[in-house]
């Protein structure tokens, strides 16, 4: 019968385990094997906002290596910061939208959403003229030979980039937040997949990756943002970022450019001479579910 103190035994064991771990880590670093280093950095990852500039740069490089391996092509991963003096706003002319869904698929292509299982960031609702804007009488699954159909109008919904976002408040791990230019972003490495934000969002604008997102390598948009359209892992939530890989570099989002009737307007709310401000000044604007005090920066209007 052993008289050994169980506490001593525990101490020795833990020490050995830690020692082994360190040896292994040292061995990985010593061999300079980038692949192992990449998976280690995932294990010991840092919250995006707490990364030093060096850590940020090495993280981006690490992801570029991983995507290169997975898709066998160059994919750039960037962490473009919000521009100073910019607050993005979006306006959508409901009276011009014809419900063609070009925006939905332009968004999928631009932002590398999973094709199967399908993930869409934009939902176009078909509504009845006689009911007006009433979500109880809205149909996202309309199938038509030709649009617009008689006695119907179309109401696209996507992330409203709220000033007071319910999704951000609901996140238990702070994996989602509002950047200074108003874009609500998700850190896919920090998201634990609890889907609190999906239920908190009153606009149905967040999607969860139930399976590993599936995008054919040749269809991947290779210009990506770490907090935006880079290929996502399974089990995280994703959403519209006003195409941050485009908008933070001065360009219009993909949905704005593709809309065949010019119903989508975008720009800097803080610039009094911007297009978006012209639209907001010259039309009677409304926001969706105003009573919830989410304060969307996505505005709707009827110009005709």
């Amino acid at each position, binding site marked *: 019968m052993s008289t050994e103190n169980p506490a001593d035994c525990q101490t020795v064991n833990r020490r050995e385990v830690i020692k082994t771990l360190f040896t292994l880590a040292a061995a990985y670093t010593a061999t300079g094997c980038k692949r192992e280093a990449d998976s280690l950095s995932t294990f010991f990852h840092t919250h995006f906002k707490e990364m030093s500039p060096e850590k940020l740069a090495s993280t981006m490089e690490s992801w570029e290596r991983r995507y290169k391996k997975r898709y066998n092509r160059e994919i750039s991963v960037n962490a473009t910061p919000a521009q100073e003096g910019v607050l993005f706003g979006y306006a959508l002319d409901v009276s011009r939208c*014809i*419900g*063609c*869904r*070009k925006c*939905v*698929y332009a968004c999928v292509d631009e932002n590398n959403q999973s094709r199967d*299982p*399908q993930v*869409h960031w934009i*939902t176009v609702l078909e509504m009845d003229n006689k009911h007006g804007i009433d979500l109880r009488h809205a149909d*996202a*699954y*309309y*199938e*038509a*030979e*030709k*649009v*617009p159909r008689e006695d119907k109008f179309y109401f696209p919904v996507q992330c409203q980039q709220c000033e007071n976002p319910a999704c951000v408040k609901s996140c238990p791990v702070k994996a989602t937040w509002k950047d200074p230019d108003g874009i609500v972003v998700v850190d896919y490495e920090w998201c634990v997949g609890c889907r609190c934000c999906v239920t908190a969002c009153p606009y149905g604008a967040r999607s969860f990756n*139930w399976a590993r997102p599936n995008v054919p390598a040749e269809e991947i948009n290779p210009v990506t943002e770490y907090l935006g359209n880079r290929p996502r892992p399974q089990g995280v939530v994703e959403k519209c970022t006003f195409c941050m890989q485009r*908008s933070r570099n*001065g*360009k*219009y989002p993909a949905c*704005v*450019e593709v*809309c*065949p*009737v*010019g119903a989508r*307007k*975008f*720009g*800097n709310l803080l*610039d009094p001479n*911007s*297009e*978006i401000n*012209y*639209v907001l000044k*010259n*039309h009677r604007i409304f926001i969706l579910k105003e009573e919830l005090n989410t304060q969307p920066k996505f505005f709707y209007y009827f*110009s005709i």
Partner: protein
Amino acid sequence: MKMRTKLILLYAMLAATAGLVSSLDIPESTDSGAGAVPEDLIAVAPPPFSEGVFPCSDCHFEDDEVDLDPREVDFHDTVHFDHASDSRWCLDCHDAQNRDMLHLADGRLIPFEESYRLCGQCHAQQLRDWEAGDHGRRTGEWSGTKQYLLCAHCHDPHSPTFESLTPLPPPIRQEEIK
């Protein structure tokens, strides 16, 4: 005397400032016509001609005799004219003498690249909104260079009602996602 000089100086300064302000506020327009737009803003795509119709002067010669009576025209049978067609016809917009140009209501000639000025004569609000980026589609940079489309890129000037489109497929219903 001194006081008077001061006043004159003040007036001169005020006038100079006023001149400066007005030259800043009002964009210099090439002429006073309808739809004069600051030039740096407008970079339109080339006009959407049907194949083989331009230049018009390939068939319509300058010394041709022109019948100015409004009537149905046989040759351009691909043109379906349904745009206030009770009161207008070809030569209200197309110029009879200079066939490769359009003309405004006052007779001034404009190239097809500036056809928005012609449209803006009746659709003034749309022209204002288009200049401001409110009406119509733009591509490019929200903060910089933008590409405009002419009115005629989206609206057929001869029959401007939009053709309806076939929508892209609806999303897969949640219960059908495996």
